[in-house]
């Protein structure tokens, strides 16, 4: 089965961990993830500037390793990311900001990517909605 997975919650909220575990289980079960889409506070889970205490789960790192290892299509809504200060080098330059905190494997794109993924998938599964 093809899954599109959307995450709306920040990395320190339980929904982000649940989304990651669900995504891992999806692949482990032999299913396909057509796209991960991070929206609202979910964009913080892709930030490379999150520093987790040493004895705590480092969710942004786990997300990055999971996405990279599996070559997943993973997209952040660009408007949501800019509003929350999650910028890649290109956007940092465009808006004359002093730092970038988003790198590969993450991409910045529009909400059309969420709709496209939802159309392609058999199931759209959302985490961290209100």
């Amino acid at each position: 089965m093809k899954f599109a997975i959307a995450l709306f919650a920040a990395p320190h909220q339980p929904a982000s961990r649940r989304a990651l575990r669900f995504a891992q289980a999806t692949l482990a079960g032999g299913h396909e993830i057509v796209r991960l889409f991070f929206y609202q506070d979910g964009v913080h889970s892709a930030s490379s500037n999150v520093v987790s205490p040493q004895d705590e789960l480092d969710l942004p790192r786990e997300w990055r390793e999971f996405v990279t290892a599996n070559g997943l299509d993973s997209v952040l809504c660009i408007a949501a990311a800019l509003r929350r200060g999650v910028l890649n080098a290109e956007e940092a330059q465009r808006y004359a900001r002093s730092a970038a905190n988003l790198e590969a494997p993450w991409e910045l794109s529009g909400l059309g990517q969420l709709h496209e993924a939802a159309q392609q998938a058999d199931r759209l599964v959302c985490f961290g909605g209100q």
Partner: protein
Amino acid sequence: MSKSLLIISRQAPWSGPGAREALDIALAGGAFDLPIGMLFLDDGVFQLSAGQQPGQLQQKNLGANLQALPMFGVEELYASQRSLSERGLGDSELNLAVQRLDDSELTALLERYDQVITL
């Protein structure tokens, strides 16, 4: 045949970017000619309250953006009558033409859509 998507908007317009970000999903879907519906539920019905003055909070008027929904082809617009009544808006004129649904109609509405996003 495109899958239909219902967006359930549950945030008041003054409680953060949630209401606007729910609307943006609907508008983006409309721009792609997808079958999109939008339901205002719980505090989300405050978005429909007429005569708001968000400028006093240095905020933009979300009500003006809601008017774009029909222009983007999103014409299936609903609000929970219970949510409206609980917030003193049961008999109020709203700033958007929505169908008011009772609880049993909400159940039927959720059944009709292939996918649901709640924000």
